């Protein structure tokens, strides 16, 4: 999966540590073995592996220590990173930006990029050095950065903003609002009821594509039935 990228990233270090061609080739092959984790937290493993390769070049480690470290870290860090970055930080940044766009703020995409990348790039750089200095001590990492706790907080804030988007229906951009259809408060209550009904439908199984195609058919039916003029 990501073995090629990992080997590409560590190759300059190997070239420097192992001037001997055969040894260099052996170490490069070692890093081409299966590797798959969350891409941002891979920098923690990369930092740790660089440190261990340095130790190994000084004959203080055996090969299996490096391979074992990668194998041991990739699954838990993958789960942790997926849950935090993809499952909490990205939805928070995106939903916040969508809330701003829906209410007419054109610069929301810029805010999305800044908010997300302050976390992303900051943590990515910090992880590299943290991995190097701690020699891959993931327990220390998890004690320092409470990823799970932050993920839970971010998810709650995201859900609240989603509710807020529905509660701001009267302030939506002209392209989205349907002020003429109903008075404001009943309209917002209707949108909330529709969202809750859709959540119930999704719980019974249903893909985004099917829902969107279904919505298009529903809209056509409403127009041809004369409900929407």
């Amino acid at each position, binding site marked *: 999966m990501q073995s090629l990228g990992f080997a590409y990233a560590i190759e300059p270090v190997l070239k420097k540590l192992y001037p001997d061609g055969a040894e260099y080739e052996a170490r490069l092959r070692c890093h081409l073995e299966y590797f798959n984790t969350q891409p941002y937290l891979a920098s923690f493993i990369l930092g740790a592996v660089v440190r261990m390769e340095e130790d190994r070049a000084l004959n203080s480690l055996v090969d299996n220590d490096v391979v074992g470290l990668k194998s041991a870290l990739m699954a838990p860090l993958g789960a942790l990173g997926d849950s935090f970055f993809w499952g909490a930080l990205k939805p928070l940044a995106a939903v916040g930006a969508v809330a701003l766009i829906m209410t007419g703020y054109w610069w929301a995409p810029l805010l999305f990029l800044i908010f997300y990348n302050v976390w992303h790039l900051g943590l990515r750089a910090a992880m590299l050095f943290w991995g190097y200095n701690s020699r891959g001590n993931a327990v220390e990492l998890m004690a320092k950065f409470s990823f799970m706790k932050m993920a839970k907080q971010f998810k709650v804030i995201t859900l609240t903003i989603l509710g807020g988007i529905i*509660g701001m229906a009267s302030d939506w951009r002209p392209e989205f609002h349907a002020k003429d259809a109903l008075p404001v408060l009943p309209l917002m209550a209707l949108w909330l009821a529709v969202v809750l009904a859709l959540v119930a439908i999704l719980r019974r199984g249903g893909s985004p594509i099917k829902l969107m195609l279904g919505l298009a058919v529903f809209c056509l039916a409403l127009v041809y039935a004369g409900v929407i003029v």
Partner: protein
Amino acid sequence: MPMFDTHMIFTIAAVAFFGAIIGLDRLAVGQCMISQPIVAGPLTGWMLGDPTAGIIIGAVLELIWVLDMPVGTFVPADATVSAVSATAIAAMGSTTGAALPLIGFCILLTVAMVPVTMRADNVVRHWNSRLVDAVMDASGKESGRALVRAHLSGLLAFYLKSVFLYLVFLPLGVAAVFVFKQLPENIHRAMSLFVKLLPLIGIALVVRKLSMNMIDLFLIIGFLLAAVAGQFFHAQAFTMILLVAAGGWLGARYREWHSQ
């Protein structure tokens, strides 16, 4: 006036070139979120002179695909190709800024293309997985050069995949828009309604994935906070968003404190 004039062909080529560069951010380079629909859509719209279409398409598709995560070996929908294609088709299909029905039609069109983009992603990933063998076959210092070649070939494969998809989707989309414009007014009205209701599907998709509850308490709290602040205190939208976010943060802290 012909459907595909020189300007149109040049525009399609430019979108394919730049869209594929943006697409590299999705999996292959950086992952700084430039490839997310909420950025890729407005960027494409701005390049083609219709930022409004890009903003609307980007916001809607972002909500729909934001939690489609690349976890493990799962290949999510290529939301970048969808957002860039929908925006480009909408912008090319109108000279004075795309109308709402056209935007709705373009979103629907690119949603139908999603299975093709997922299949193309799978093919490229399968091809890329064999690149490791090429490095394994090299020996000595040559293996370093083989690694660089293999790595860059992988990036190129992702890039060319996106270029190919744009070169197929965009002309088809422009032709479809030509047909759409001839369709009865009722279908245009339905597409307009489709765009207005799409954010509700997006919100439901995110709620479904973030919450285990059928009726999520924090969703209701956010709704009530915004509704009261907006309707009774006439707060500005930006203030309401800050208020709602602060309310969510306090709620999260309270839940933590309560569960200890």
